[in-house]
């Protein structure tokens, strides 16, 4: 190759930085791989057992969604859209989108994807909000967690999937890890930010009236941070949807699997249809959660309680 012939590397070995001995490097890699493998052998089963209930729930929820007759799903999703957005237009749009998805025979995959994304989002909220709260209370904790979040968002997901797959094998749990690690940072960040942005004077007032720490957090600080927290939830949903194709690579059922099949076989229409189904779900989730988030801060614009 041209680049090889440009420089005689043996003569000019000062151009590249010094390299560790080849043997030593191999030993290090081998050592770490070996110890992780023996860790997997030793504790893999125990860890798998620990996550067994979660796996069962994932399977159950997916089966439940797929087994539910479509009119009931329509009513549930239509109802949720109404509760979130209070807009008939959005309800009609949701029903229409699901009708088309059903008509084009993507119903089961869509249900599988929605079940996976819902469980992951729920897990992100349950884990992410407390971490965000913890972070907002101490600059030390914040300075420690922020780089971890950067890591989680930028490290290629396949890299952290290697140990996960070694531990759990390919499947739902590994997929769940991939999605949660990728999707949890926004909710942590925005919970932290939202809590920190709450007006100091209002918090001082809560203190002055003798509010305890919990009363202050739950009665004043968190409710006032809710619009930001909700923006975080919205981002988390979007990011977990973005991960369904990666999840498909490790054998998680859903629309991603079809997209992957289309990519491998160059089925243009199949890829487009499943891709658009993901987009449709994303838009519905996004609009509904955003509308809900906006309604949460009605008091700011001086409107009456909706």
């Amino acid at each position, binding site marked *: 190759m041209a680049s090889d012939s440009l420089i005689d590397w043996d003569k000019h070995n000062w151009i590249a930085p010094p390299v560790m001995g080849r043997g030593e490097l191999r030993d290090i890699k081998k050592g770490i791989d070996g110890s992780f493998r023996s860790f997997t052998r030793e504790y893999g089963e125990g860890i798998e057992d620990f996550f067994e209930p979660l796996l069962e729930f994932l399977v159950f929820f997916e089966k439940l969604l797929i087994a539910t007759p479509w009119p009931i799903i329509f009513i549930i999703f239509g109802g949720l859209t109404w509760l979130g957005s209070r807009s008939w237009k959005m309800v009609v749009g949701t029903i229409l989108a699901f009708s088309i998805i059903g008509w084009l025979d993507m119903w089961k995959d869509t249900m599988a994807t929605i079940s996976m994304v819902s469980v992951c989002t729920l897990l992100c909220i349950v884990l992410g909000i407390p971490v965000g709260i913890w972070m907002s209370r101490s600059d030390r904790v914040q300075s420690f967690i922020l780089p971890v979040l950067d890591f989680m968002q930028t490290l290629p997901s396949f890299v952290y999937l290697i140990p996960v797959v070694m531990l759990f094998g390919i499947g739902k749990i590994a997929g769940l890890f991939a999605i949660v690690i990728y999707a949890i940072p926004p909710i942590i960040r925005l919970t932290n930010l939202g809590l920190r942005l709450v007006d100091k004077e209002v918090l*001082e*007032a809560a*203190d*002055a*009236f*003798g509010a305890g720490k919990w009363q202050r957090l739950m009665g*004043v600080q968190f409710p*006032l941070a809710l619009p930001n927290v909700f923006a975080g939830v919205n981002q988390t949903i979007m990011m977990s949807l973005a991960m369904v194709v990666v999840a498909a690579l490790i054998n998680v059922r859903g629309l991603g699997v079809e997209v992957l099949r289309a990519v491998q076989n160059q089925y243009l229409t199949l890829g487009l249809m499943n891709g658009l189904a993901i987009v449709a779900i994303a838009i519905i989730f996004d609009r509904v959660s955003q509308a809900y988030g906006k309604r949460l801060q009605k008091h700011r614009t001086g409107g009456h*309680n909706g």
Partner: protein
Amino acid sequence: MAKKQDVKISIKNLYKIFGPKADLYMDAVKAGLSKSDLLEKHHHVLGLDNVSLDIPARGIQVIMGLSGSGKSTLIRHINRLIEPTSGEMIVDGENVLSMDAKTLRDFRRFKASMVFQKFALLPHKNVAQNVAYGLNIQGVKEDDAKKRSLKWIDRVGLSGFEKRYPSELSGGMQQRVGLARALATDADILLMDEAFSALDPLIRTDMQNILLDLQTELHKTIVFITHDLDEALHIGDNIAILRDGAIIQKGTAPEIILKPSDDYVADFIKDVNRARVLKVRAVTTKKKITNGPKIEASQTIENALQILAKSKFNSAIVTEGGEIIGSVSLEKMITTIARPKANEDAHGAYS
């Protein structure tokens, strides 16, 4: 003055140094290190400099100073929103600064409530919920809290606005909510941190009168922070003037006007309408006279001058509660209300 009032809040040698190593410089400040030296050499700010003040019960104590004088810092020491570097804060015989977390919470819940300059209402709660906030924190039952908060909403003249949110109200109305919220807890100490400073002048006078009206009936111990001298003179039973974190004069309104302790205070009060602030009592002499109109000692000099001018006499008989306590001459009143040229004049007028 009347009999000595009982002391509700006693502030003793209070110091506050802002900065990471405040304790380190405490002794040096006590030994006389100045505020500017502390700032220049050690980059620490002296917030309060040996403040001692006895605040009588059931009166309005005004603490006045320009911005940066430490007045907001001082009031936050009373309910310990700010920790002092050194000193004592005795309220009803108990040192607030040595309370544990729970006792302090109870102190804030039941003993001292606060009104804030920028209202600090809870934006996500409506008027009724805001006023009931202190009661909720106290653990008062929902129904009871609602009843009590509605009473106070009515008292501050906000009936009909219970369901409105703070963002829908004008500044004056928001501060009425703030006042009602503070009164609803039935705390006997009311801390008001520049409570009316953010309001426009007409609304401010309005709020001052609402406060004075309520006070004639409630007799709370009110600590009122302001930078506005007219406000201080209007509502304060006692006034303390703060500069650079230290109290430079304390006394009643006439005492401060007639006997400013230094040039700073004298400069401060030079534009005050003295006739409207000073009462006849301050210029009464013991000399008994028989001819002349009778004037109550609690009247302002402004009113007394009007009465005297119409009566064609040169002196008036001063009464207090119907009893004659002395007399006052036209000349005395006029010289008293003249703007002092320098310190000595002011002292002279008082003697």
